C-alpha cells in the first residue's frame, strides 16, 4: 500500500521534472521562432515582448534573396546523397570486416578506418582545396559530396559492422542450409535484419552532413553553399541581423525535423541493435 502511494508521488514529481526539462529543451526553439517573426529592433528589447503581432518579412526577404532557397536545396542534396552513397559503399565493407575470420584484418582495419574520423578536418583543408581547384570542382555540390562521403564512411563502417556482428548465427546457418549464395546471404538476409541499424547510421551521417560548416564554407562560394554557410552570411558587418538569422535558422531545422518524424520508429530500435559492440 505504502509502496503504491510512494510510487504515485514519485511518478508525479518525476513527471514535473521531466516537463521542466522539456521546457528547457524546447524554449530555445520557441525563442528562435519568435525572433524570426519580429523586426530586429522589436526583437531586442528588454523586457521581452511576449505578446506581439508576428510578421513574415524576414522569411520573405530570405526567400527573395534567392540565396537561401539555393542553400536549402544544396543542403538537402548534400545531406542525402553522401549518406546514401556512404551506406551503399560501407555495407559491403562492414559486412566483410564483420565476417572475415582474419582477425588481424578485422580488428585493426576497422579501427584504422574509424581513426580517419578522428582526424581534425583543418589539416586536410588546404590539400583538398588544391585538389578540388585543380579538378575544377570548387563551388560545386560534388566537392562537398565527395568530402562528406569520406567523412561518413568511417562512422558508417564502424556502426554497420557492429550491427552485422549481432546477427544471430542460426539465421546464417539456416540460410546456408537453404542454399543461399554468399551474396544472397548478405543482400537478402543480413541487410533486411539490420534495417533499423541502417536507418540509424544513415541518420547519423545525415545529421553530420546537414550541420557541417568548415568544409562547406571553404569549398563553396555562392553556387553550392549550404545552410550553415548561408546562416553565417547574415552575421556580417557588425550588424547581426537577428531577424534574418533566426528565420534562416528555423528554415534550417525544418527539414531535419521532418526527417526525424519520418524515422522516429527506428530511432530507439536502431540504437539497440548491436550498440553493445
Amino acid at each position: 500500500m505504502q509502496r503504491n502511494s510512494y510510487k504515485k508521488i514519485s511518478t508525479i514529481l518525476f513527471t514535473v521534472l521531466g516537463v521542466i526539462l522539456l521546457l528547457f529543451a524546447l524554449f530555445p526553439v520557441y525563442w528562435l521562432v519568435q525572433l524570426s517573426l519580429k523586426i530586429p529592433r522589436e526583437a531586442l528589447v528588454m523586457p521581452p515582448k511576449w505578446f506581439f503581432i508576428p510578421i513574415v518579412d524576414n522569411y520573405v526577404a530570405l526567400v527573395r534573396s534567392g540565396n537561401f532557397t539555393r542553400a536549402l536545396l544544396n543542403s538537402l542534396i548534400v545531406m542525402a546523397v553522401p549518406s546514401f552513397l556512404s551506406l551503399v559503399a560501407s555495407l559491403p565493407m562492414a559486412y566483410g570486416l564483420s565476417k572475415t575470420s582474419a582477425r588481424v584484418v578485422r580488428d585493426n582495419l576497422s579501427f584504422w578506418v574509424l581513426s580517419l574520423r578522428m582526424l581534425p578536418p583543418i589539416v586536410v583543408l588546404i590539400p583538398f582545396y588544391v585538389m578540388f581547384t585543380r579538378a575544377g570542382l570548387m563551388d560545386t555540390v560534388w566537392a562537398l559530396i565527395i568530402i562528406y562521403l569520406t567523412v561518413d564512411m568511417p562512422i558508417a563502417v564502424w556502426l554497420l559492422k557492429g550491427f552485422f556482428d549481432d546477427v544471430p548465427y542460426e539465421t546464417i546457418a539456416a540460410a546456408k542450409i537453404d542454399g543461399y549464395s554468399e551474396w544472397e546471404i548478405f543482400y537478402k538476409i543480413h541487410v533486411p535484419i539490420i534495417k533499423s541499424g541502417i536507418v540509424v547510421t544513415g541518420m547519423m551521417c545525415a545529421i553530420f552532413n546537414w550541420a557541417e560548416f568548415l568544409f562547406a564554407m571553404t569549398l563553396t562560394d555562392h553556387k553550392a553553399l549550404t545552410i550553415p554557410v548561408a546562416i553565417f552570411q547574415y552575421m556580417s558587418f557588425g550588424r547581426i541581423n537577428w531577424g534574418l538569422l533566426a528565420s534562416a535558422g528555423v528554415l534550417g531545422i525544418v527539414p531535419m525535423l521532418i526527417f526525424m518524424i519520418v524515422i522516429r520508429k527506428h530511432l530507439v530500435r536502431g540504437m539497440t541493435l548491436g550498440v553493445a559492440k
Partner: protein
Amino acid sequence: MLEKSRRMWFLIGIILLVMSFGFCVSAVEVMQPEDASIDWQQCAGQEINILDIAHSTSMILEPMIPQFEKLTGIKVNHLMMDENKMRVKRTEDLLAGAGRYDIHQIGLTIVPQYYKAKWLEDLTPFIGDASLTDPEFFDYEGIGKPLRDGQIFNDYICAIPNMFCGVYPHYRTDILAEAGMWFPQEWEDVPSLYMPKLKTFMSNTYKIPAFVTRGKKGAGANTAYASMLHRDWGGEWFDEKGKPIFNSPEGVAALECYADCMDPANGAPIGGEGLGMYEIRQMFYLGQVASILTSGDLVGMFDDPTTSNIVGKWDATIAPRGPVKRTCLLWTWAYGMSSHSKKKDAAWLFIQWATSPATMLQWGAQVPPPRLSLWESEEFRKIREIHPGWVDAERWALLFGMPDCQPLIPEFPEWGEYYGIAIANVIAGRQTAQEALDLACKQVAKVVGYSE
C-alpha cells in the same frame, strides 16, 4: 619643440577645414568613365572573381556592378561575406596558390604579411601603363596620402584603398545635451570624470552604461583601439634593435587608462573583456550605451530606421588626446590583386573603375570616400547638418590619421594575439598592466626573433 609644431599643424588643419566649408558652393566635378582615354573593352569576354566583405562599401558597389559589366564586357562575380570568414577564404586561396579569386579585399594591417609572402601583385606598372589607366580619370594622388602610403612597401604598391575610416568617440546627442556634458578632450578625463558623472546622471533615467570600447582580443580588434591610447602616451612598439618595448611606463599608463574605460565601476558594461566590435556597435544603435569608441564608417548603420533606435540622435567628436599627442587610428580596406590571378588586366580595370572618383561620387554620403575632393559634395553638406562632429572627425582622420598606430610588421597576427590577450586580461582584472605587458613583450620577442 614637438608641441609647437603639433599645434601649428592642428591650426593649419582647422584653417583648411574652415576654408573647405567655403568651397562647397558647387557640386564636385569628376571625369566619367566614358570620357577616359583607355579602351574599356580590351578585356571583354573575361570573367573575374572578387572576394569582398559584406561592408557598406561593397554593398553600395554591388548594384553598380552592372554598369561596369556593360562598360567593359567583363563578367564580375562579386562575393560578399563577413570579414572574419572572408579572411579565412582569402588565406586559403592565397596559401593554396589557386588563384581562384582575382581581387581580394585587403585590410591595412595584413599588407605586410602578404607583401612578404608575395601574394599581391605590384600595381605600379598597371598605373603607369597608359593603355590600361587614364591618370586623370583614376586620379591616384587624389586618394588621401596616409591611406596610399599604408599600402606601399619599397615602391611596391600592394593595393588601392577603396574606403577608410578613423576611430573616434561617438555619443548620444540627446543624452549628453540633457546632462549638459561634452565628450572630454583628454583620454585621462574619460574614465575619471566623464564616465562617472554620466553614470550618476543616467542612473535614474536611462540606466545604461556610459561608455564602451573594444575589449575582445584579436589582432586588429581591441589592439587597434588600445594602440591609439598607447601612441597618445608616446609609447612605441619596438626599439631600433627590434626589441619589443611596449611594456614601458608609457605603455602601462596607456593600458591602465584603457582598462579603466572598460571598468563597470566607472560606468562601462559588464563582460567588457569579451565585447567585440559587433557587440558594441549593436549596443550603441540599440540605444543601450551612451557613448562608444568606434570606427567612423557607420553612418548608414546608425541611421537605418529598420534596425537602429538612435536615428539622427548621435554625433561624433575628434579623438581625445593623451599626455603626449593626439592620434586617430586610420583604417583602410583596399583592393589587392592576387599574384596568382590569370586575368590581371581585367582585374586592374575593375580596381581602377571601383576606386575612381566617378564611382565613389555615386556613393553619396553613405560611405566615407578616401578622396578628400569628394567631401565637398552635396550629400556631405546635408550630413554635416545632422552630424557635424562626425564630418569633422572623419576629415581630421583623413588628414592627420595615423595608419601605423599598430605595428605594420609581417608578424602582425601573432603580435595582435598576445597584445590582445594582455588587454583582455587587464580589463578583466586578472593581471596588472605591467604584468600583462611584460608577458606580451616576452612572447612577441620570440615571434619576431629578437633575443638578448
